[in-house]
């Protein structure tokens, strides 16, 4: 069986599944709107937590939170289920597909056979939609892929039962109630306020303060841990910023697209000029990534390069601080 499901490639998996599932269920919502209403823009630096031998940095809130906030703000009810037994997970999925319901799944990336090898890591909070089944093959709409794809039932079981951090435990989800005549305006204002609150939070590792903490550390790293490790640490930041799913510039461009859409919905021209501002900030993040990646080639002990990269991040933090303050006022 095959459900008539429209696959739309998006930048990020979580927003993409939301956008595609909601649109299928009659609520047209773009990826930027889903991202913005879910307050997806974020920054956190966790120096004490090492991922892939480098301190953890994230440009997004913890997996699932965007979806959770969006559903709450729009009054959408989502049914979520986890299964201890893979057999019952498969049965539940098959029953839903028979009833013509496309289903969202949380999966691990490492065993996704259609992913290129260099992107396969043990990251378990990826999202995709199953929209049909042909004998032993499941029809998959993975929002970060250009086209729809397929997984055998054995392969699907493997990714649904990936282990480690964020283990999916067979988690599946689908909307069970979407209110009629949803009004986006209130949800948008609430979401923007929450984003400003997060990014301006008086917490040293979060938001603009978190960025400054990273910027300060970059200056110290070369002396403290050597250039090889420093490059690896910087590389991890760049990867988190530009990895599949951010739409470029650590989600800043998606947020710019959101503000543009929000400006029309709220009839608030100020948001349009702020959209331009965050776009320019996104460009600065791109410059930061270019300079950081160049340091790999710069094997000489030229610490000046690290200072420059650090200064760039300080500039970004200052600009973002001003931006969120203005944004907060614009929806006051």
């Amino acid at each position, binding site marked *: 069986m095959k459900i008539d499901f429209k696959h739309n*490639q*998006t*930048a990020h998996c979580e927003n993409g599944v939301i956008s595609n599932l909601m649109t299928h269920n009659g609520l047209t919502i773009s990826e*930027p709107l889903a991202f913005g209403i879910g307050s997806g823009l974020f920054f956190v630096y966790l120096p004490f937590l090492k991922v*892939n*031998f480098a301190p953890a940095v994230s440009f997004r809130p913890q997996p699932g939170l965007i979806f959770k906030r969006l559903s709450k703000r729009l009054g959408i009810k989502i049914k979520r289920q986890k299964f201890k037994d893979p057999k019952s997970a498969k049965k539940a999925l098959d029953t839903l597909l028979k009833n013509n319901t496309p289903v969202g799944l949380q999966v691990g990336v*490492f065993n996704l056979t259609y992913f*290129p*090898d*260099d*992107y*396969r*890591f*043990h990251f378990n909070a990826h999202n995709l939609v199953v929209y049909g089944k042909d004998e032993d093959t499941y029809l998959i709409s993975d929002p*970060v892929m*250009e086209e729809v794809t397929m997984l055998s039932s054995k392969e699907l079981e493997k990714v649904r039962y990936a*282990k*480690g*951090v964020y*283990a999916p435990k067979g988690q599946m989800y689908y909307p069970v109630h979407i209110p009629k005549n949803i009004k986006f305006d209130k949800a948008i204002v609430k979401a923007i306020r929450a984003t400003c609150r997060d990014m301006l939070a008086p917490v040293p590792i979060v938001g603009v303060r978190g960025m400054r903490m990273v910027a300060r550390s970059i200056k110290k790293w070369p002396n403290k841990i050597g250039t090889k490790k420093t*490059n*690896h640490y*910087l*590389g*991890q930041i*760049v*990867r988190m910023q*530009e*990895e*599949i*799913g951010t*739409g*470029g*510039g650590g989600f800043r*461009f*998606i947020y*710019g*697209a959101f503000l*543009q859409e929000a400006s029309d919905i709220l009839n608030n021209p100020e948001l349009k000029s702020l*959209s*331009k501002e965050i*776009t320019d900030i*996104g*460009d600065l993040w*791109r410059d930061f*990534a*270019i300079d*950081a*990646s*160049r340091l*790999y080639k710069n094997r000489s002990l030229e610490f000046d390069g690290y200072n420059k990269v650090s200064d760039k991040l300080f500039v970004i933090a200052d600009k973002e601080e001003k931006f969120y303050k203005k944004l907060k006022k614009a929806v006051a």
Partner: protein
Amino acid sequence: MKDNEVPQDKSSFTDLYYAVDKEGNYITKRSSGWKPKKIVLDRSLDMIDERVKDIKQKVMNNEVSPIMYYMELNRMDMSVLAAYFGKWKWRVKKHFKPANFNKLSSKSLKKYADIFNISIDELKDINI
């Protein structure tokens, strides 16, 4: 980012960017890759390769067991492997010692082989 600046370098993945067109409106555009992104991804994969090579030598010298080698080869760390094995980290760490590895039951060996998607023979001899 302007839509004509969306990078079209070589990489293994085509992803979606958000960029502004001439009128200043946001649009989406596919990108075949971006060099800075590829540099950092490749370097991070190089690091794994270096570790795999290093551990391979240690297995040959009988300093560590093949389990450590296959863990690195599968881009896992100890917590991921322990989660798949269903035991505490220190239990898995014990199996990194060749002496303890040689004492493993065939049931445990089979479990490890399944995790790494290989045969028990391959698990015992990394050169197969």
